[in-house]
């Protein structure tokens, strides 16, 4: 087992990890286009159609093997289009969250060939759980990674403790690991130092423990840290990563033949009476979830979401939701609720000056890339320099701490998204 201690980084103080736990069965779930940049959806359902858990909702026009499936049974309530016919949101009215019916074919046995397993993952809509770098996109249906990183830790402020979720579904997690290690020659199980997790003895699977402040839990950090220490294993090729809850979902599907769509998330932040751990569905509607966490005794119980800023995902890198996009993101394990007033007070100091070369960027940056030159290249849209410095191996979340500490309030992660998009198109 490899242990890696990272010194640089920053744990943003937002409060304690949630302790209280509840279950929430949403009346509505949605699939959001913003979760899948680069995916060109070809919709297979229309408004009003009935769908079962596992029904294919859409396929990627350019890579038809890649599809997205319904996390729960219900009726398609709304398909909202964004700019240039892109998908904004596909909303499903869930009629019974406990519905056992499914459209999925039974999963292959775990000793089936890798090709069979791959097709089963793709048909089940579980393939988008993987994301490949460079460019942080859903991998091609036939691609093979050089290394696969299983992210079984979370250093974001207020994030749920992965150990809780994994221990509850230990069998599913174990089975999921067995399935996905077959896809990659090398798989790293990345956990927090001392995490009480069992790592099965599998060919090509190795556990690595990370300690240190955020971003010690991000897959980008893991990729660079391991590359710097295991130079002999530096084979060219894509690096894939997958989150622990998706590994559990894969294990559940191969174990029971059902897609549970389950997510254990934290609902937390200064805007809430208390921080909670909530068991709910992928894409759950956030407003009704939040309303459930206010009691009638709370002053603004009539419209509890008024005056709040709701972020799907981590406080640093999540998406600010609006009334029409208030659904849990595909890759998100937390919902952060802030007071709008406190956010607006900070927003008044918008970016007016260029980048200020202060030391703080270096002190929150654990990767072996000179950070300030990278940030400046991104701001200047100097894609060539950014690519030379390894920008293609980063995801916007890797730069979120730089956004947070930047005294000039520049938006480096958005600049990275634009740069990645341009580089991917070969510009």
């Amino acid at each position: 087992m490899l242990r890696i201690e990272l010194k640089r980084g920053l744990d943003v103080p937002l409060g304690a990890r949630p302790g209280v736990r509840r279950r929430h069965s949403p009346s509505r779930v949605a699939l959001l286009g913003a979760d899948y940049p680069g995916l060109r959806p070809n919709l297979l359902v229309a408004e009003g159609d009935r769908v079962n858990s596992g029904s294919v909702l859409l396929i990627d026009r350019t890579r038809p093997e890649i599809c997205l499936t319904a996390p729960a049974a219900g009726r398609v309530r709304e398909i909202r289009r964004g700019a240039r016919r892109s998908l904004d949101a596909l909303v499903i009215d869930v009629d019974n969250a406990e519905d056992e019916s499914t459209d999925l074919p039974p999963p292959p046995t775990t000793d089936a060939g890798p090709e069979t397993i791959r097709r089963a993952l793709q048909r089940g809509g579980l393939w988008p759980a993987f994301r490949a770098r460079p460019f942080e996109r859903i991998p091609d249906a036939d691609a093979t990674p050089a290394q696969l990183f299983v992210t079984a830790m979370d250093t974001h402020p207020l994030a749920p403790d992965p150990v809780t979720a994994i221990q509850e579904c230990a069998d599913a997690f174990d089975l999921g690991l067995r399935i996905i290690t077959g896809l990659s020659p090398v798989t790293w199980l990345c956990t927090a130092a001392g995490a009480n997790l069992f790592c099965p003895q599998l060919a090509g699977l190795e556990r690595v423990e990370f300690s240190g402040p955020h971003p010690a839990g991000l897959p980008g950090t893991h990729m660079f840290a391991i590359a710097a220490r295991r130079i002999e294993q530096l084979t060219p090729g894509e690096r894939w990563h997958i989150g622990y809850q998706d590994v559990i979902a894969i294990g559940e599907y191969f174990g029971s033949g059902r897609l549970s769509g389950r997510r254990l998330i934290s609902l937390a932040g200064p805007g809430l009476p208390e921080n909670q751990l909530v068991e709910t569905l992928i894409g759950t509607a956030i407003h009704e979830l939040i309303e459930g966490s206010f009691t009638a005794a709370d002053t603004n119980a009539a419209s509890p979401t008024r005056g709040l800023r709701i972020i799907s995902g981590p406080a640093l890198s999540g998406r600010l939701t609006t009334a029409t996009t208030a659904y849990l993101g595909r890759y998100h394990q937390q919902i952060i609720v802030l007071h709008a007033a406190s956010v607006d007070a900070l927003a008044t100091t918008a970016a007016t000056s260029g980048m200020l070369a202060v030391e703080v960027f270096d002190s929150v940056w654990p990767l072996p890339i000179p950070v300030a030159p990278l940030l400046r290249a991104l701001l200047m849209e100097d894609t060539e320099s950014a690519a030379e410095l390894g920008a293609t191996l980063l995801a916007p979340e890797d730069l979120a701490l730089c956004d947070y500490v930047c005294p000039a309030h520049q938006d480096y992660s958005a600049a990275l998204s634009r740069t990645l998009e341009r580089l991917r198109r070969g510009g």
Partner: protein
Amino acid sequence: MAIQIHAPTNARHLLQALIWASLPAAIIGIWNLGFQLLRLQAAPALLERLDLNPDPASVISCFIAGAAVMAPLLATATAVSGFWAWAFSTLRRQPLDSAWLPMAWLFVLLLPPSTSLPAAALAMSFGAVVGAHIFGGSGRYLASPALLGALFLTMSYPEFVAVPLPGTDIAITSTWAQLAANGIEGSTLLPYASGREIGAIGAVSTFACLAGALYLIHAGAASWRIVAGGILGILIPAVFLTWADVDGALPGQWHLALGNLAFALAFLITDPGAAPLTRPARWLLGFTTGALTVIIRTLDPAHPEAVLHAALLSVLTVPLWDYLVVRRAAARMASRAPVAL
């Protein structure tokens, strides 16, 4: 989607930190300016009108005498800097560059007390326009606008600077020039280091400047590597030149105590708008500033004060150091990146 939360430190805090950090240096500078004026019996008319005793021992008299010289300069520089910031923000339809005030403040602290108001206005214009606004304002320029403005003044219009003190016919020679010509035998370091010297208004007290540097480092506005590199850059050549027994060689602490060197290390080259992007370049910027100053001061037969020239030269090399560091990192990335590119 822009991030919704931010660290408590923003650009405005950094500018405020700069003002706070330079305040002790400014206060000591104003007092010292008055002290020197009264010592030379060049008391401004204001003292007489206020019926104050023009005695150098009186702190209040010194302070008011110094302020009487500095206030018009500060008002002029602030007005000019504010005008240019307003003009560029109006023409570019951008928000006002909030660095206009600290820019003028640092510029005035760097001025010799005998500077005439038109010269100050001209130099401030040069510093603000050529130093900052044509590059797009703060955070985008190459060198501190205050540094450029002050250097412009001493290089282009030495006759403006060398005029007698306002209201008198007394011409003053800076302490650096006196000591460089006569040697330091018989002088003690402490009064000069604490601020009792003739020089730029706000740059006389080395202790106050270094305290300001510590505050800026604590506030996250300045890099300790630049300051530490600067001190190393002073000490190493000074030791070497003294050891080689070069004519005019001074110990490092004398270099730091005299002239604008401590001020430049604390406030000019640490300017986050123009500071290096990489750690090695930060060390090098400080080191070259200190080393160039000592070398020019010692080896130039005229023994010029040299700090502003050295600082500008060093700041202009910063993009080169950063470029070299980035090239090395890119080469390493090409061979060791997680994905072979």
